[in-house]
């Protein structure tokens, strides 16, 4: 009951801080933004005003086709994308260009094209515009002209352009990810990105929340509330309360993220379609229940493991700067396992990867990385959880012995031999 009081206080004060609110809601907002932005910009391009172009056809045989093809292009509202004006080359090209430049500068015209009679041999034509940086616009013009020229060549060589088109069709790849339940279609790069992403979230949360615990203990030590608390509850209860309270904050944050993710999964497409009606799927990976479950388990065991170390470090020192000299005990293994994660991603089922993922300091991140890569059999996952639980128990015992002495020590930073002596105190 008393532990709950401490948990409650820790949780409520933390959840109310600005840092927590920003940290919690920034990620989902960024996630939504990342998905909606491309859709938004795509639709912006589609909605842009009608383009007025003039075409100088020097070949004398493309004019009709060009006018028709450009005329057929519609924007997303179903309006004509291009308003085409065909010019002939009766008069001098330079003077025509001069006249058109004036019209473009005057805003009367967006661009003009010069299709020279040599287009069939040198495969190029000119486009003059004020703004040639509009990639989508330039590409559309190029594609249109190119396809007309190609079709004409096919016709002239006696081939059926329809047939050639069909034979020439581009082939695309669909990748399948093999999991426990069979294979699911997924794009290879998204899969890699998202496993890296989840590993990253786990890494950041362990690092961040471990340090939160260190700082929380130092704060209480400095505000001198410890003595009253320790006279009311046992040091172990106090430590548990702190670690659980901060852990609950982390879990809350994580649950909010999951909820956002699910909401996006359910309604995101509808939202995105408001901006881009032709969108049929969101760039969202599928997360299997196995991944979700192991994420929670490794986050919790990893958090408690490192938070206990954090509490121990916090109890030993008096200031944040003093904590720096001991914090490596907690930070190093987390950072090392993060780098090892990249290493084992290449060969997640190698012997080295398997051994590394069973070392308690590395298990939370490395075993999870192997789960993401579907390289960890169920028995290994189970065994790693058991080992993690036992190590956690040992770490709580060890850290608890240092904590109950350290928490009441003020003054100079203890040396390592002194800390060792604390462990032996009865």
């Amino acid at each position, binding site marked *: 009951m008393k532990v709950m009081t401490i948990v409650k*206080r820790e949780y409520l004060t933390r959840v109310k801080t600005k840092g927590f609110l920003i940290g919690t809601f920034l990620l989902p907002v960024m996630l939504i933004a990342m998905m909606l932005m491309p859709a938004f910009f795509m639709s912006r391009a589609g909605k842009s005003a009608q383009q007025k172009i003039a075409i100088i056809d020097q070949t004398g045989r493309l004019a009709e086709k060009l006018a028709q093809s450009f005329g057929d292009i519609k924007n997303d509202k179903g309006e004509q994308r291009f308003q085409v004006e065909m010019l002939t080359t009766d008069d001098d090209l330079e003077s025509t260009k001069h006249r058109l430049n004036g019209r473009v500068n005057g805003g009367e015209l967006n661009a003009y094209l010069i299709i020279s009679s040599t287009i069939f041999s040198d495969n190029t034509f000119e486009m003059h515009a004020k703004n040639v940086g509009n990639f989508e616009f330039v590409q559309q013009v190029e594609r249109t002209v190119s396809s007309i020229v190609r079709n004409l060549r096919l016709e002239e060589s006696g081939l059926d352009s329809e047939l050639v088109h069909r034979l020439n069709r581009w082939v695309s790849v669909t990748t399948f990810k093999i999991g426990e339940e069979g294979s699911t279609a997924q794009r290879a790069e998204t899969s890699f990105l998202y496993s890296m992403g989840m590993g990253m979230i786990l890494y950041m949360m362990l690092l961040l929340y471990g340090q939160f615990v260190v700082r929380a203990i130092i704060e209480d030590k400095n*505000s*001198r509330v*410890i003595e*009253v*608390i*320790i006279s*009311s*509850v046992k040091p172990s209860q106090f430590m548990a309360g702190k670690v659980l309270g901060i852990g609950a904050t982390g879990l809350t944050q994580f649950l909010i993220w999951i909820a956002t993710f699910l909401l996006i999964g359910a309604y995101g497409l509808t939202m995105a379609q408001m901006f881009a009606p032709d969108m049929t799927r969101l760039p969202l990976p599928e997360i299997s229940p196995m991944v979700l479950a192991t994420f929670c388990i490794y986050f919790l065991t990893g958090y408690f493991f490192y938070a206990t170390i954090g509490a121990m470090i916090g109890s030993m020192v008096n200031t944040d700067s003093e904590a720096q000299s001991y914090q490596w005990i907690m930070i190093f293994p987390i950072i090392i396992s993060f780098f090892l994660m990249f290493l084992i991603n290449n060969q997640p089922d190698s012997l080295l990867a398997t051994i590394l993922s069973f070392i308690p300091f590395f298990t939370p991140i490395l075993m999870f990385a192997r789960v993401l890569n579907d390289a960890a059999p169920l028995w290994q996952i189970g065994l790693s959880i058991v080992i993690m639980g036992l190590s956690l128990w040992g770490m709580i015992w060890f850290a608890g012995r240092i904590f109950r002495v350290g928490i009441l020590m003020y003054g100079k930073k203890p040396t390592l031999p002194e800390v060792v002596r604390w462990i032996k105190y*009865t």
Partner: protein
Amino acid sequence: MKTLNIEHVHKSYGEVHAVNDLTLSVHEGQVFGLLGPNGAGKTTTIRMIMDIIKPDQGNIEILGATHSDKVRDLIGYLPEERGLYKKMLVSEVIQFFAEIKGVAKKRVQQRAHGWLDRMDLLEWRSKKVEELSRGMQQKLQFICTILHEPRLIILDEPFTGLDPINTNLLKNIILDLKGGGTTIIFSTHLMEQAEKLCEGICLIDEGMSVLQGSLADIKKRFGKNRVRMHYAGEATFLHDRSLVASHDNYGNYVELSLMENVTPQRLLERALQEVTIELFQVAEPSLNEIFINVVEKGGQA
């Protein structure tokens, strides 16, 4: 009934013997002063009573039991190093400290209102602790110490940092609590406070109990040979070693200690022959004098 019983307790920090064979007991409903100079071992003793640190040797019994979780909730403790959660609201802090002492939420609110009112902090209830002055924070911490209605209250230097008005307020509250049957132990090096409040005292110096008992007894023991007098005339008797052991002349008056087996009566008879007496008083020594006397003697020995 004994509320607190300490028997032959020792505690060392490395080479330093912080508490050395301390034995003392405090009766129920008593106000007990743990006195001593700075660094005498008062805080160490209190921390051992609170089970924050364990004695190396010896036995401590509180309310007839050795330390347990149940006993924890029956003690209120105001440590020398004051500390509250600065970012929390006054009402939240009270709630928190009462809850870790096992008081139900509903009862906390009723009691808190009364105490905040008495301490003149009621309008600060919804303010953050950091907005309060030092004196107010100290009063707030006192409320946190007693809100769970402990049977034993331990106050480590409760008066430091309080102005005379608040000192008086606190003194009255201590006396009220004592009237309600609560046992109160406080440590101080301010003898004036101890003299006004305590029934029993224990004087600690260098980790050892050097003087212990009820204040009245101790005063009697130290006071039987002290006389204070105002007079006019030439007082040669002050230098008579068969009567006066020593004297301090303060100008307006003289304080003197009599030789052993000399009664104040005999001194008065002799003095009447030499001077005109304006005031003659068999004086009790102040606790301050006893303190200095005992500690300095201990230092010489």
